[in-house]
């Protein structure tokens, strides 16, 4: 599975994702500067990494959504290619309208970095195919704007179409929902996918739960494996 990580000025999890994917999937990862207008090698998976693109001085992700490379990312997605946006990458996906909604400041109005738990809400997509519905995963979060928001009617549409992929959860009871969201996300939404299931945006950082001797846990390894499995069995396009 050929993977490309887009590097925006101010991205700071680009190298982390590169390492996580390299080490867990034993594949090479292209780093693509945001000023490129196309991918030199057509990737199967495009990752928009976390960080503070353009300093996030405007709305988070708003400037990056207008980078030259974004056109190629959209085309890739329209062909059915995989696009994964993590944290700031998720914010970029909402700013490009590739995914619905907006990520607003956390209710605490502070940056929050800690481990947290999410429940897998659906597996009929190109990313969580390898999990069982209802499984609880531990991924760290690190963001200031992670409150997923949509107007009520659109939120209902999103829920009804089963596009909520991850929801913040309590690992002891297995319950998930708004009360477990560290950031105030509506319905406890941590990650959503596109209608075709080939675009995923999530606030938690699976790459931080990938290197087993580090302090972020290991559930990320299963996440990358799951993408590889979906790709192998269902193909990217």
């Amino acid at each position, binding site marked *: 599975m050929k993977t490309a990580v887009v590097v925006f*000025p101010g991205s700071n999890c680009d*190298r*982390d994702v590169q*390492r996580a994917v390299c080490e867990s999937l034993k594949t090479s990862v292209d780093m693509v500067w945001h000023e490129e207008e196309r991918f030199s090698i057509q990737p199967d998976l495009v990752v928009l990494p976390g960080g503070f693109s353009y*300093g996030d001085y405007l709305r988070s992700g708003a400037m990056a959504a207008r980078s030259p490379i974004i056109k190629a990312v959209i085309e890739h997605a329209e062909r059915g290619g995989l696009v994964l946006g993590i944290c700031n990458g998720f914010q970029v996906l909402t700013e490009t309208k590739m995914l619905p909604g907006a990520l607003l400041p956390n209710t605490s109005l*502070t940056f929050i970095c800690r481990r947290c738990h999410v429940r897998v809400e659906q597996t009929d997509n190109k990313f969580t195919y390898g999990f069982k519905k209802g499984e609880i995963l531990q991924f760290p979060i690190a963001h200031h704007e992670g409150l997923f928001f949509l107007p009520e009617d659109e939120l209902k549409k999103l829920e009804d179409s089963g596009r909520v992929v991850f929801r913040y959860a309590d690992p002891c009871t297995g319950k998930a929902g708004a009360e477990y969201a560290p950031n105030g996300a509506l319905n406890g939404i941590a990650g959503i996918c596109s209608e075709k299931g080939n675009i995923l945006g999530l606030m938690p950082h699976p790459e*931080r739960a990938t290197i087993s001797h*580090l302090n972020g846990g290991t559930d990320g390894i299963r996440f990358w494996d799951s993408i590889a499995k979906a790709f192998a069995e269902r193909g990217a396009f």
Partner: protein
Amino acid sequence: MDYKSAGLSDPEYRRIIEILEREPNPLETQLIGVMWSEHCSYKSTKRLLRTFPSKGKYVLQGQGENAGVVDMGEGWGFAFKVESHNHPSAVAPFQGAATGVGGIIRDIIAMGARPSVSMDGLFFGDPDLKKTQNLSKGIVEGIGAYGNAVGVPIVGGKTFYSPCYTDNPLVNAFSAGFVRLDKMASSQTAKKGDLAVLLGSKTGRDGIAGASFASRELDEDSKSSRPQIQIGDPFEEKLLIECCMDLLAQNLIASMQDMGAAGILSSSSEIAHKSGCGIDITVEKIPLREKGMAPWEIFLSESQERMLLIVEQDKLDPVFAMAAHYGLDCAVVGTMTDSERYRVYEHGELIADLPTSILGDATEVVWPSAEPKDIRERITMNPSSLISAEPERDLLSMISCPNGRSKHEIWEQYDSMVQLHTIDGPGSPVAAVEVPDTARVCVLTMEAEPNKCRTDPYIGASETMALSLRELWITGAEVLGMTNCLNFASPEAPEKFYELEQCVKGLADTCRSLDCPVVSGNVSLYNETSGGQIYPTPLVVTAGLIEDRNKRLASGKAATGDTFYLAGDLCGSLGASRYQVMKNGTPAGKTVAPDHSKEKDFRERALKTAAAGAASSGRAVAGGGLAVALANEAIASEKGISIEINSSVPPEEILFSEGGARAVYAVPEGKEQVFESIWEGFPCTKIGAVSGEDFEWKEMFSIELSKLKKAFLEGCF
């Protein structure tokens, strides 16, 4: 320019005339005045700092560079330094703290290292005061806003509360980075004909003469010092990091220096002086953010996110291309010469012409020292006021008080995991990060013991240093070196200078005796207001190395079936302990003076314990004493602990006394014999075991783990 308003004294001005053999012109007076300020010149402390041991087998770069560098093995160096940003943070908490983080990161870049970790030493006043709450909120948010965006994880730190910091909080920013040994950069390698290139932000009026601001006491007028506070732009800094890393990878930089205090002036004069060169700078070539800036403003501006690069002429094009790639401003502003003179030109006219040595070597000042008159009073304790009638209540108070409780409300605002190399982050007594692409672990501690330094500066500083070393030894680390930030009051008062002198002596003696070279440091003086002075606050950050991450002994890993041992004496001293201060309000009494031969003995055994895998968890007995060490161990391990110690010593001494080479170890079943034989001949007592759901201390108390945890996490019970 009146030399006095440039901060120069009469004798200093006479000395300048003597060296120059003429009167300096107003611009020159201003330039010398800033370079001779305490903040830039260390003129009051140089003499003391020379007493630090600087050599060690792991030292690759000692004092005198932007940061010290130690050898982490397998071709990796580790550049690290801590620096104060106290005065700016007192006046503008958010920006002051943010730019402190940014500034220390550039010191690490200047060594050629990719900034890899940060830590922060924060000293706040009375936590019940609105003023303290506002200051600490601003400072923590500023650190987070900058550190998070720039993508350098904050892996640990120290937060300490005492009313002595109410008007004068301290912010000590630490940063460190890994560098391939063949890519190390230096500020001493410029040569004639090379070009001086400014990379990064344009120069503006922000932070003009911040160095002289930091060289006097804070007063009511400090609020009007706001224009001296710099504004941080972490986005620009992130680009600066990436650009410098790429330039270094391609060997395009001959020499480099960050721009901190006294901006262009200090960076360019230092690089010229240290390289044995001269430099000619053309004012109008410096990119400016605003119109009408006078040359002195341009040279002293502390605009952030700028680096001074020294580039060979034929490498200029690729340097400019790289800067353009990252969208950074870049300009050639001068040329290195062999004149050993610092010359400034404006539209072809020579407006300053000084020997580089006059800027680099300020005349040292010798301040008199006198033992404080109340020193006897400070070390006198009233034992009857310390009796613990309710040990359970006292313990809960100790772990829920501002200095004892969890600081997660602070450190959860910091990204501690970015860069994907954090093994153990904030909340753990020792931070641990991966050495890139190896099985090696770099471990770091940050310590300060202001209460102990207040009552006995020499012993207090010695214990600060010894404690930081013990913490590293317990993890199984070889100590590589330390950096320090010396936060003190005015050196001009003999009794205050005495505190500084004694603390430095305590640090130096302990480091020399226990084999820890001092590789970098920073001094912040004049930390006082009309309301009083801060306690002497030497803060140390010590770096260690564990070659095999599987041999690291962590804390908070006690497991079911483990036996608890106390390695070291049963008691230390209640003098200036957390317990004593809690009971009496202000520190009194002396802590234990570290016994160096005992410390060395402890070191050998602690290292063996980790190497042999003889324990599942280990923790130094530090603030709050044995009871707090065990409580923390129970909370972090999420295990009940049962302790039984038969002794006639009063409970408070056993539970809460501090100091001395002491550690608690959780030893797994089957390892008791190995453990006991390692510690044979050293005081070592079996004190209990992991058991049940409570933290139980026979004949003292039994506290439910959930209650203990609540007290620690929420600060109430």
